[in-house]
């Protein structure tokens, strides 16, 4: 099957091996931080599906990360639900909310969708504080810290590292598989030229909503992982910055290729932790400049850049950063939702 190309399997295999052996070489806080990388990678994977493969802009995915985090926290503290059920539950709950938002998003395009999701992201802390009976309000909710199951001879941080990366790996393969076939083609067709895709029989409502729900579910799972690792959720964790950060990670990592998720996760996790030792404003400036530079010079992000190293042909002409001829005459017109 063409899916299991040798170079892909080899790449995945090598990365998997590296991830598997890293904790042996790192102190426990290193594994701890890499756990966050896994979570961010999952969230960014969702954005690659939504924005990279389906062309919908979301500045509000922090909302789904919040829903996932709070879902696992509330289930654990109010209903005693263990984490191994809570994590997929968080994904499902976020996915359901994603369907709702996705349906609304059907009628919005481009900048309007960006604007609406931007407003959503900004409202999240208010909503979390308001329903304080459920969410613990401004004080947040403390979660039971992770512990390795009895009989497993590694510490809690490393155990959870493997859990997070295992989930990330499974989702990664699943995503690649699903995008390979008709689902992926339909999403990309809608991204490149919606009118043409519709005329070919692709149902935009179904696929676009699906993309939203799917990416929301991933963000929810990421949120659950972050909440469990931090052992705490509070409204302050889920401000507008989070949505921006995840999108920045997706763009810098690269929206074209799924590997962008891992690279994006690394950037998002380590840039703030290290750049701020130089100067507290440094991460912002570096992020912003990098973002602009990437869009101008290397729209495929880091992954696109690395992939270009060992691909002879140019990547798909219909990557989001490039122009498409069909649209160039229409781009400057204020694009309102049709009817």
């Amino acid at each position, binding site marked *: 099957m*063409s*899916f299991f*190309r*040798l*170079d892909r399997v*080899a*790449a995945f295999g*090598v*990365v998997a091996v*590296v991830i598997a052996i*890293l904790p042996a*070489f*790192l*102190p*426990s*806080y*290193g594994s*701890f*931080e*890499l756990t*966050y990388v896994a979570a961010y990678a999952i969230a960014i994977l969702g954005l690659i599906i939504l924005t990279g493969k389906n062309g919908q802009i979301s500045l509000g995915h922090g909302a789904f990360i919040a829903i996932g985090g709070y879902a696992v926290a509330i289930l654990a503290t109010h209903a005693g639900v263990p984490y191994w059920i809570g994590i997929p539950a968080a994904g499902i709950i976020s996915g359901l909310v994603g369907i709702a938002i996705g349906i609304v998003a059907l009628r919005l395009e481009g900048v309007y969708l960006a604007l609406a999701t931007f407003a959503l992201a*900004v409202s999240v802390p*208010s909503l979390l*504080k308001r329903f304080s009976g459920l969410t613990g*309000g*401004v*004080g*947040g909710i*403390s979660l039971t*810290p992770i512990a390795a199951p009895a009989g497993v001879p590694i510490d809690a941080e490393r155990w959870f590292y493997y859990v997070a990366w295992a989930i990330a790996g499974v989702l990664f393969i699943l995503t690649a598989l699903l995008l*390979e076939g008709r689902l992926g083609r339909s999403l990309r067709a809608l991204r490149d030229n919606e009118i043409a895709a519709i005329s070919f029989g692709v149902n935009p409502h179904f696929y676009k909503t699906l993309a939203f729900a799917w990416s929301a579910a991933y963000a929810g799972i990421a949120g659950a992982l*972050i909440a469990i*690792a*931090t*052992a*705490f*959720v*509070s409204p*302050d*964790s889920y*401000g507008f*910055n989070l949505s921006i950060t995840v999108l920045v990670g997706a763009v810098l990592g690269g929206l074209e290729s799924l590997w962008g998720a891992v*690279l994006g996760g*690394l950037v998002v*996790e*380590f840039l*703030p*932790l290290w750049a*701020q*030792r130089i100067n*507290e*404003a440094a*991460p*912002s400036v570096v992020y912003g400049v990098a973002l602009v530079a990437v869009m101008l010079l290397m729209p495929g992000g880091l992954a696109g850049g*690395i*992939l270009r*190293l*060992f691909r002879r042909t140019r990547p798909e002409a219909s990557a989001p950063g490039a122009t498409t001829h069909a649209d160039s005459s229409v781009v400057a017109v204020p694009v309102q939702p049709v009817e």
Partner: protein
Amino acid sequence: MLQRGYDMFNSRRLAAGIAAFVALAFTATAIAPALAEDGVTATEITLGGTDPFSGPASAYGAVGKGSQAYFEYVNDHGGVNGRKIVYKDLDDGYSPPQTVQLTRQLVEQDKVFCIFASLGTATSTAIRPYLNQNKIPQLFVATGASKWAHDAEQFPWTIGWQPDYESEAIIYARNVVKEKPNAKVAIIYQNDDFGQDYVNGFKQGLGSHGNLLVKTASYEVTDPDVSSQIASLKASGADTLLVAATPKFAVQSLVATAQQGWKPQIYLTNVSGSETVMRAATKAGGGPDATNGIISTQYIIDPSDPKWANNPGEKLFKEIMDKYVPGGDTNNAFYLAGMAYAFTMVDVLKSAGRDITRDKAMKAALSLNETDNVFLYPGLKVQTSATNHFPITSEALVRYDNGKWVATGAVIDARSIVKSEK
């Protein structure tokens, strides 16, 4: 997808790509041996901390900078027990996941001796279990939440410092009940743990007179102004107003109150009680009427108030700011608060002795009897014991009269009020 062969040319590039990835992963996570050290060497002792230097709460970052400046001053004057203090203060952006990761870095990579003055209630709560589990002192948490003392049995390695917000609100409530038993009280408060602590404390302080509180209104830090909230509080017919707001919003509250022609008796949180705030409110509020008669409390000196010009703490503050925070705003009380915290920290290090351990430091922190903290309001002490985890419980009640804070003479210990009723 085209099927592409795996030829020799591609495989070299593939290897290069993977090598790049691996190198990235390894450099991103500094490899270090996992030893347990104390953060204490012959010549240095290293403290760690987190502050919001960026993000929505970044105005509080000045506290951390103030502490840093005081430590540098102490270092230049011989250090503590022959050691210099190194304070690694990192920016967590007020976000608990960041705080957790940074704190672990500080403990496991920078090998800090203890965590000092972590700022923020949510952020400090997030790291509390980890620090206590690993028996690392979480000293003098920089917020006015009361939970550090209330939870001391469960988390014995954590202790606060400043008088807590609940206590302060209790003081105001008692004052109302005493001076004006028929008052109708309204509260404007910031919708976070800071503001809600005041509301809870006030209600607690009213006790059986709970009916005196007629209306509360919250605001978000994302609101441009609070004129709407003030309007609805005024409409409730209240004649007393508690302002539990951070400086920017405190000024706005006072100004809106004056503009709308409302003249309640105002109680103001000491977080916003600086002369800078009062001056701004007086100016924008149309004159002294906007601020006359406001009651607040003080526990540290206010660097923007000229009445403290000859106070030794004020002089030291200015000296330190001049030398170690050039360009820093010498009217900003947050810097001074940071120095006050640091003063107590140095005290703890001193009394724990030259062969200091975490255990000894914690014991020293729980047996404080500090009477010489120059940054505190004269007469106030920092005292702790095995049964008392509130280092500072007394505050001076002050009233703003014609452009000046005037001491009412009352120095009230809020915690003893609470204790005496149990």
